[in-house]
């Protein structure tokens, strides 16, 4: 049996009286790509932060390959590509990756940084400060940073934001590669077409609750869109 890489039960997060997320259960096996869609404020980012261990759930629990969230062994398994890039503007693209690689104890930081810069099409601007990058370039560098330690679980929060068409296509291909390599990905996005094309499971969130769940690649874009629009209407 394929044991779940990400396992969550009864996840709930409250900010005072506001329920950001409630009653979310997950069982994601190796090589699964889960798309989490929903309107703004639906709880997508909260779910990713709970899975990453960046926030504590009010109720419920998360395990990554059997290890409780937040533990060092669990953090080692996670690559997080968030809304924010985690980059230091004063450091060059190469230095940002070298820094991240050293933090994660990567055996050949320089080699890994070069490979990722080339893969993201940033080799030409490797020695420019990250602060001088456009949103799209910074996003590509952030993706490289998130993958620097070759994580087993990749959490992506709106990764297509700011990417031009070639860069978005490149990310599409990378997501497919990650799935082929057996990595488990959770992708929060508003881009339903890309979500349907890449993911083999989908979760539609509305006001912090699961409004619709779909499974089986390829996902049917129309069904997902109907559920998404219903969630948007519901939260309006």
């Amino acid at each position, binding site marked *: 049996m394929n044991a779940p890489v990400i396992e969550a039960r009864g996840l709930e997060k409250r900010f005072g009286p506001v329920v950001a997320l409630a009653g979310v259960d997950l069982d994601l096996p190796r090589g699964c790509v889960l798309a989490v869609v929903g309107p703004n404020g639906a709880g997508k980012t909260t779910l990713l932060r709970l899975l990453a*261990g960046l926030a*504590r759930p009010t109720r419920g629990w998360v395990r990554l390959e059997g290890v409780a969230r937040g533990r060092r062994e669990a953090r080692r398994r996670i690559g997080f590509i968030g809304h924010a890039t985690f980059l230091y503007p004063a450091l060059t693209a190469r230095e940002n990756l070298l820094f991240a690689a*050293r933090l994660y104890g990567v055996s050949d930081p320089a080699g890994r940084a070069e490979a990722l810069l080339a893969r993201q099409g940033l080799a030409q601007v490797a020695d420019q400060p990250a602060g001088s990058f456009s949103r799209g370039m910074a996003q590509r560098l952030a993706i490289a940073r998130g993958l620097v330690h070759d994580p087993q679980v990749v959490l992506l929060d709106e990764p297509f934001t700011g990417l031009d068409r070639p860069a978005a296509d490149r990310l599409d291909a990378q997501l497919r590669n990650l799935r082929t390599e057996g990595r488990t990905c959770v992708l929060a996005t508003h881009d339903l077409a890309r979500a349907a094309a890449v993911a083999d499971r989908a979760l539609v969130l509305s006001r912090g609750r699961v409004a619709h769940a779909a499974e089986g690649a390829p996902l049917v874009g129309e069904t997902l869109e109907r559920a998404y629009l219903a969630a948007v209407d519901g939260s309006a």
Partner: protein
Amino acid sequence: MSVFLAILWKDLVTEWRSRDRVIAMGLFALLVVVVFHFALPEAGADRLRPALPGLLWVAYVFAAMLGLNRAFAVELENDALAGLALVPADRGWIFLGKAAANWILLGVVQAATAVAFALAFDVRLAAVAVPLSGVVALGSLGLCSIGTLFAAISVRTQYREVMLPLLLLPLLVPVLLGAVDATAQLLDEGRVSFAPLQLLLVTNAVFLIVSFVGFEYVLDE
């Protein structure tokens, strides 16, 4: 250890390129010295002498507050603090890297301030430069260790500029007692007894251990 070195390298390189923290701290410390120079009566220079070590440390502490407040501000940009929270290492090493960078940067400012202080108050620091450097380094270690912990705690609070001194200053009493006493002995007698150094060593050890362990919980939301 690699995490410690990576954080130290990052903080020093970032500061070297912007220099905003060192310049702000240095100018502030210099202003404190200048203000004291003009505010205190020139005629009673001998009577002022016992207060000079305290004045020097006031400048150091104010400069440190400014630097510590900014130490984590750079981590807020692009939510880099969350990036650090995800690092699969003992977070104590992140603390040590940040504290060491703060200590080095404060040391640079302290050296420049000491020169201005010597000129402003006609104090002969050159004769005791080496032991004074040791005392200042010890005092700063305590200041930066607990200061780095509280800077990390206060950085996400609404009034962080006010919160840090409020939290930190009461805890700095033993550091200041030891550092000012040792500095006074050096300026008066040219040597220092073991008692203030002992106070600094013990306080530093406690602050370092508490901060190293406590930092594990500081980065969580």
